[in-house]
């Protein structure tokens, strides 16, 4: 059996649908994971009582269990306690929570580079600690952590393939689904590999642009 290009052309619309779903779920989850990252890093920085321990527990839980187990927990486990989410939102929740834990650690690394001198300069100008966090610390931490945060975002994009296990019709699901009926494994997997590679390349390109823009203040 040889590589059949024409077959791929006939499947192109289905693959595009899958790609669109992968893009939606990933983009939304990347945004939510960043939000979780800022909140979690802020809670840890300000050492908010109770919440700090909760965030630490969350990070440990996510980092030390398989993402597939986390996904099954959300999709099959939560309904048992009355929380039934759609396929789509189960996927978004899983990816956001997973990447959020890493974004918290990424941002914490960046926040650690914001030194006491800057904090005191802010205080001397009467900035409140919340204003300082929002206007000074987080923007600096974002710039410092950008490469690490990009890595997490790329991993999130790749991990979106796990969502096929619960039946969300994203890119990998479409490929596996078609292979089950058409047995064109080599064509399908080649196609989605190329698509994932292209997605990662685009993401890296965008982040590179952003980094070049954000890094200007730190270049001499």
């Amino acid at each position, binding site marked *: 059996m040889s590589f059949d290009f024409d077959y791929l052309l006939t499947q192109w619309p289905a693959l595009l649908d899958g790609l669109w779903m992968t893009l939606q779920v990933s983009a939304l989850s990347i945004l939510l994971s960043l939000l979780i990252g800022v909140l979690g890093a802020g809670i840890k920085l300000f050492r908010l009582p109770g919440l700090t321990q909760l965030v630490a527990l969350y990070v440990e839980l996510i980092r030390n269990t398989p993402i597939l187990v986390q996904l099954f927990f959300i999709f099959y486990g939560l309904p048992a306690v009355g929380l039934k989410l759609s396929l789509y939102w189960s996927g978004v929740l899983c990816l956001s929570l997973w990447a959020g834990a890493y974004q918290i650690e990424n941002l914490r690394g960046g926040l650690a580079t914001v030194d006491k*001198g800057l904090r005191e300069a802010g205080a001397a100008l009467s900035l409140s600690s919340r204003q300082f966090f929002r206007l000074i610390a987080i*923007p600096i931490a974002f710039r410092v952590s950008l490469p690490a945060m990009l890595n997490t975002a790329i991993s999130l994009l790749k991990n979106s393939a796990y969502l096929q296990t619960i039946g969300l019709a994203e890119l990998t699901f479409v490929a596996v689904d078609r292979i089950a009926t058409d047995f064109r494994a080599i064509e399908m997997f080649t196609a989605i590999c190329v698509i994932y590679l292209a997605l990662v390349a685009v993401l890296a390109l965008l982040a590179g642009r952003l980094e070049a823009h954000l890094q200007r203040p730190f270049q001499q």
Partner: protein
Amino acid sequence: MNTLMSVRGLRKHFGDADVIKGVDLDIHEGEVVVVIGPSGSGKSTLIRCLNNLEPATAGDIVLSGSNGGRDSLARLRDEVGMVFQDYTLFPHLSILRNMTLAPMKLRGLARAEAEAQAMKLLERVGLAHKAHAYPAELSGGQQQRVAIVRALAMQPRLMLFDEPTSALDPETVNEVLQVMKELAAEGTTMVVVTHEMGFAREVADRVIFFDGGRIVECAPPAQLFSAPCEERTRQFLTHVLK
């Protein structure tokens, strides 16, 4: 002369360490007070207490026009400007944004207003052409001049300087001292911790010799430098002036 700030019985402990051991001081409007003293004597701690960056353990710091009540500590922060040894400009913001941030967020100035004020201040220190540069693109002396006018943009009633030239290359020390001299000449009330004895001699109205957490001696520079009353002052001066 009107008293701008009055300090009474100021004490500061860090755990067991007794760093400020009772300071009484009146700072008059338009006055330049220079604080000198050996390393570790508590000079930084003293002036950091003056804007409540370091909360005092005991004692009162009262700005004129304030009743000394609870909110007077917030007012202290708000009405006292401070310049640190290591410039501390916000690295991710342009010089102009460094200047306008606090006036816009805390004084409620509109952007146009804040920028006009910032440009005027930058012009005064010869750095208007750097308004859109970033801190890393400026020399140490230039950054320190920006730090000074950034504090001035909040229109403080009192300016504190903690060794503002100690981190600078010798060639750039004078450009910063020059700005401070001009401020003094315009009647800005200042408290300056410095090792620049020439500046103290020329600009100070009063020089405080600070040692062991106490004001050992406080006098006009002519008197303190040529005829100190205290033996410890004399020893310190022969050490630093030789």
